[in-house]
């Protein structure tokens, strides 16, 4: 007699993935739905006929494109240094790769105001040095200002992504070219450059995407009447109550972003292929004084232009303005008044709760997806589909949740932040789970473990450090995010990031800087988590 046993298996992916898809798709469709009020085509035609529609896309695309180029210009020398040279301070340069992910853009924006503003540190220093009457640096509130902020903010993305590929660009290929008679410049142009080109393309498209969706920096520096589609969407929905127009912005900007994402995915796929058969070139010392001098100049440039704005926040937070104009002293008074501010404790608590919630969702989904990806053949679809949330902006999602729920909600904020952080969390987790040896799981299964059992007893413990890093990254991104909460403010619910935005808007810059430093301490610790940096790279 034979008995048929139906084996019951529980697959977390079967619950988590549809749930996550719902977190992405419900707000997305809700964001697009108002377009159908009175006919989608007529609404789209109306949107396209509005001059600001074309203007905003032209502005958004051009600023993103130029910003990506600037990020490449600043990031590529750093990528070379990280990949091929040994020098003191290399770890610090390498740690900068976490800046775009763990330092909120709001902090960068305030840093830029303090440093490059008309009365900023740079202008004051230049004016006193060269005895000038007018501040020489006046680009901040313009296209150039937006591009500079984006370029400097995102150069570590290029440096990190390209640096990783450069470090693993195949040594033997370069050796083979040398032996075939190629000069060093020819080796670079014909062997090294083609091998890092996919990484350059991936980095540029990622930076393009991040700048295209930039919100705060454009809102602050773009000036009146100028805005990216993201900012125009916000204005149309928040101040003009023109929901069909806001939906048209949401739809078209999502389509544009998806194109950029497809480009990113294609480059990323090739970058992955190239990395597989790589043999690393060990970084060496500088071969000439000229090279060492150029690296020193580069380091000085990064310190002055990139670290300067960040350092000025700390200085400003410790500067106590007194009643007499121009006089100031150093102290912790700004922190004292910030902590004493009504609502600060609640904001800190809300930041923690929101961060932990969105990090839990993002890390759990990231783990399930990364395990799922191990079982999927590596195709463009399997690379791009999990990264789809990269192509959707937090403003669109927040707007969509508002439309779907009829009112702003804290749940919606957590969902938006989880979805936004998830692609980066996935990368952080994949850098461990994705690369861990599949044979361990196979061995567990051969020893009688079920699929779920081997995942829980073998894969999960092996992935714990990377999961912790992914969780921390998601927490930091959530804590620093002001976009979603500005786009869909929830009455009576304030976070430190929102408080910072309001303080800056009220020109209480010293307290804003103290809040920025507090926020940076909360988010900046992931600077030191190697898995996070590896994941980002």
């Amino acid at each position: 007699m034979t008995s048929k046993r139906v084996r019951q298996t529980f697959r977390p992916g079967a619950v988590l993935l549809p749930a996550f898809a719902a977190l992405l798709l419900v707000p997305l469709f809700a964001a697009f739905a108002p377009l159908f009020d009175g006919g989608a085509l007529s609404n789209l035609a109306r949107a396209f006929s509005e001059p600001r529609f074309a203007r905003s896309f032209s502005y958004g695309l051009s600023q993103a494109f130029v910003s990506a180029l600037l990020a490449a210009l600043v990031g590529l020398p750093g990528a070379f240094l990280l990949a091929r040279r040994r020098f003191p301070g290399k770890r610090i340069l390498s740690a900068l790769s976490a800046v775009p992910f763990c330092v909120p853009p709001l902090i960068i924006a305030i840093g830029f105001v303090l440093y490059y503003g008309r009365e900023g540190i740079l202008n004051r220093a230049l004016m006193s040095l060269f005895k000038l009457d007018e501040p020489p640096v006046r680009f901040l509130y313009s296209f150039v200002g937006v591009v500079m902020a984006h370029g400097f903010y995102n150069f570590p993305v290029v440096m990190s992504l390209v640096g990783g590929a450069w470090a693993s660009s195949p040594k033997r290929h370069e050796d083979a070219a040398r032996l075939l008679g190629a000069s060093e410049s020819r080796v670079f142009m014909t062997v090294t450059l083609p091998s890092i080109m996919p990484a350059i393309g991936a980095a540029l498209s990622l930076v393009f995407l991040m700048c295209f969706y930039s919100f705060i920096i454009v809102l602050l520096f773009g000036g009146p009447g100028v805005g990216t589609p993201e900012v125009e969407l916000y204005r149309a929905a928040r101040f003009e109550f023109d929901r069909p127009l806001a939906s048209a912005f949401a739809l078209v900007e999502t389509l544009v972003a998806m194109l950029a994402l497809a480009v990113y995915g294609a480059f990323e796929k090739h970058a992955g292929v190239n990395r597989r058969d790589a043999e690393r070139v060990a970084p060496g010392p500088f071969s000439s004084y000229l090279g060492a001098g150029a690296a020193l100049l580069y380091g000085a440039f990064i310190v002055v232009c990139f670290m300067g704005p960040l350092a000025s926040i700390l200085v400003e937070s410790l500067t106590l303005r007194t009643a007499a104009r121009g006089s100031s002293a150093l102290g912790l008074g700004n922190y004292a008044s910030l902590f004493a501010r009504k609502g600060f404790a609640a904001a800190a608590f809300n930041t923690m709760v929101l961060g932990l919630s969105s990090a839990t969702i993002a890390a759990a989904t990231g783990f399930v997806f990364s395990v799922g990806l191990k079982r999927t053949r590596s195709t463009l679809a399997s690379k791009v589909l999990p990264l789809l949330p990269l192509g959707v902006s937090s403003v669109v999602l927040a707007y969509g949740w508002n439309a779907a729920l009829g009112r702003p909600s804290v749940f919606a904020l957590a969902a938006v932040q989880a979805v936004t952080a998830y692609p980066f969390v996935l990368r952080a987790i994949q850098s461990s789970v994705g690369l861990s040896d599949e044979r361990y799981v196979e061995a567990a299964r051969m020893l009688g473990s079920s699929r779920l059992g081997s995942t829980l007893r073998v894969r999960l413990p092996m992935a714990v450090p990377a999961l912790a890093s992914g969780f921390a990254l998601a927490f930091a991104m959530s804590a620093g995010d002001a976009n979603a909460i500005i786009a869909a403010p929830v009455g009576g619910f304030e976070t430190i990031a929102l408080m910072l935005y309001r303080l800056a808007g009220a020109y209480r810059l010293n307290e804003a800087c103290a809040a920025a430093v507090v926020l940076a301490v909360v988010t900046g610790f992931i600077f030191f988590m190697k898995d996070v940096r590896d994941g980002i790279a």
Partner: protein
Amino acid sequence: MVSLELVRLTKAWPLETVDVSLEAEAGKVLAVAGPSGCGKSTMLRMVAGLERPDSGKLFVGGIDVTSTEPSGRGIGMVFQDYALFPHLDVFGNVAYGLRVRRMRRVELRARVGSLLAAVGLAGYERRKPHELSGGERQRVALARTLAVEPAVVLFDEPLSSLDAALRKRLRADIVEEQRRLGFTAVYVTHDLEEAMAIGDTLAVMDSGKVLQCATPRELWENPASAAVARFMGSGPCLPIVCFERAGGHLFAVTETGKFPIDDDNAADGSFLFFERGAAEPTTTPGLPGAVSGPSGHDDGHGVMAARCLRADFAGDVVDCAMQTGGERFTLRFRKGRAPEAGEERLYRVNPTSVRVL
């Protein structure tokens, strides 16, 4: 045709040093064999100019090229993992060095075409490296290296990632090309059989040094040291306890027994070596003159008892892993004459085949 000479080419790291002196005869193949990590690849990279030696000289055709850039040495290299440029197709790979030399387009096409035909890959011009099999990739790598007509070609374990049958075929192709074009070749491998088959001369390396360099036959029959003998596996290498002279004969005493040796053998070595073919099974235990137990010397022959640990069937012959006095070695027997695993037998050893190392 030019020769290649390495004179005390040295590279030192905190825990290891590679110090090599070698000469590759013009138009011949010098095979370099040795265990993994013995410094073969470092030696090759120093010759290619990809690794800067700490000291020593390198001569190509009598010209000192120690400080010359890799591109100016007239040396080509076929890499272990092929190192084909993944972004270029087969044509682009083979044409790479010719383009560096600014060869005219028509001439270049003809040359690449003839090279690909020579390695049996005509019609593969537009394929990318990932579309080729391992053997095809290796042949493209060979064509690419030969395209620039180097005077010396270095082969860094070029066939190690291929299966045995393909390895043999490609080995023959390489030898054929070498004979046809007459370049000097240095062929590095950890596969002894491959090294003996391909090398006109064979250098055995260990711990960063060349232990012996001679023809494969010479190395097989007359290893200069126990380390070479053990690497070659050409026969047992028994530690000598002492030497004795009795009845006008010189004997080497080992733990296994006492072996008569010719007088022209120096009586100051530490190991007794004989070719594995010199051990004949005998059924005569403890003949008169035997020293102790079943081993000793029989009718002017040394006799040893050895246990068969494992017998591997290899077609017409059987390779047996043997053990005697703590020493392990392989003996090859004709089918039907091999011992069974676990069986202990006596073997007569011809004194003319015995050497003291």
